């Protein structure tokens, strides 16, 4: 109880900082996810009908996920210097796989009969894509976007280690002062707000997913 109270008074005492850090964290995440979505969906559309490219693209984006976050973040410092930029580049690479995989799977799962009838009615390849294949794959693509968002929100907390901002500031700040007053509270502020931000973004995306998916596709 005491812990919760001191945590809360820490939040209230630093409300401006907490708000700013949360906003920055959200900005990093949203920017990265938007860019990763555009890139991965486009890539997914391109590789879906090309088995070799598809295997390579999925393998590489899978390898990205296995690279330790800190190493990947640091890798970009020589290119763009410290700050949010190297962090966002690394996060972008992490965010690719879930969206790419779901785009490919979503397009794979479109019934051949549906594509056959679309072609048979004289739809051009572009019309087949925009009017039929993408709308059908869309719910699965959005699921990928949601997974990438959660992934990004969590990993973005270490942006501080490459000179970036976001809620990681509270975690890192608390950890380096461990044992001093308010250090634990600071770690918990960073952690809790990261989780809450993740849940909030997921709720928003879930709503978007619902609104943008056809009623005819709901189970």
């Amino acid at each position, binding site marked *: 109880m005491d812990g919760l109270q001191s945590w809360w008074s820490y939040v209230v005492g630093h409300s401006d900082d907490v708000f700013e850090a949360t906003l920055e964290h959200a900005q990093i995440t949203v920017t990265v996810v938007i860019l990763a979505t555009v890139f991965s969906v486009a890539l997914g559309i391109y590789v879906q009908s090309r088995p070799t490219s598809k295997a390579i693209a999925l393998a590489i984006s899978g390898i990205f996920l296995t690279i330790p976050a800190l190493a990947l973040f640091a890798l970009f410092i020589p290119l763009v210097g410290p700050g949010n930029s190297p962090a966002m580049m690394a996060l972008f690479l992490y965010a690719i796989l879930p969206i790419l995989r779901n785009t490919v799977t979503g397009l794979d799962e479109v*019934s051949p009969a549906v594509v*056959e009838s679309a072609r048979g*009615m*004289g739809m051009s390849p572009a019309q087949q894509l925009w009017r039929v294949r993408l*709308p*059908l794959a869309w719910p699965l693509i959005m699921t990928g976007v949601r997974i990438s968002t959660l992934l990004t929100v969590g990993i973005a907390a270490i942006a501080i280690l490459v000179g970036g901002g976001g809620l990681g500031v509270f975690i890192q700040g608390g950890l380096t002062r461990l044992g001093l007053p308010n250090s634990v509270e600071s770690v918990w502020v960073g952690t809790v707000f990261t989780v809450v931000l993740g849940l909030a973004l997921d709720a928003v995306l879930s709503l978007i997913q619902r609104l943008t998916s*056809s009623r005819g596709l709901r189970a």
Partner: protein
Amino acid sequence: MAVEPKIRLDHVSKVYPGTDTPAVSELTLDIDPGEILVLVGPSGCGKSTTLRLINRMIEPTGGRIYLDGDDVTDVNPDQLRRRIGYVIQQIGLFPHQTIAENVATVPKMLKWEKKKISARVDELLDMVGLDPRVYGGRYPKELSGGQAQRVGVARALGADPSIMLMDEPFGAIDPITRESLQNEFLRLQDELRKTIVFVTHDIDEAIKMGDRIAILGKQSVVHQADTPERILAYPVDDFVRSFIGAGTAMKGLAFERVGDLDLAPFDGPNGNGESGAEPTGTITADATLYEALEEMLRTADGKTIVLDDSGEPAGVVELSHLSDALRTAQDEARRHYDELEAAS
């Protein structure tokens, strides 16, 4: 002078990439305006390939294709397909669109006015026996198989194409629903007079649906292309004979009506015909000879009373009528083929 064929396949071939033997080899076939031509043959003989060559879902590797006398072998295939209705067994309705949106697909692509499209959608759904107010807003997953195929047909009729290609359209539907879909489709065709190429592997469906039937062997080689009556009366070779199967002659009885016969007189309920007993079974004058035969067999009389419109006996149909009818059909068909041969 014969009318210009609506569709002309001129030595059309298809060799799929990576295969040696053609799926369709030098197929030449004319399809007349307003007829239902059924392509029938064993599985894998190239029926679907042939059909898909007509709307260029696949490109021929040889030969030319003409629609209304125009060579369409090299025109833009997307434009071509909007002029041709295409119905497949798996239907392929768009699950993310309502029934109305599905049916509106081609008119929308052709950029019709909104009002015209929605009027057309209602008209088409009515035509296939689905109330637009009930079904227009539904999604495909909310339909039965039979209803979905009705929508498939309505969608293919979207922009009123003069040609319809149908690949085993009723093949995945239960027998009772299939029967009613076939009947409704024939009734619809009576009004619409589309030129239809209809693929099936079921000879009975071919006989029922076809104005003409083309019996295809391996690589879409045409063994016989003719009216169902003639094919049943006079199969030209062993392949056709074995494909149309047993009971062929009897199937031919379904094409003639009792009312067209020169009936034997009816001697009254207590009359004493030579055979002793009068027939007990009755049928109407619009019954087919096949139905007459069934009635004769059922009553074991070898003959059956024919009733006129007012339900009064008009005469008697006897077994000899049936054998005469079969022989006449066979003679007619043989003469036809003899003439063809003489002419060539």
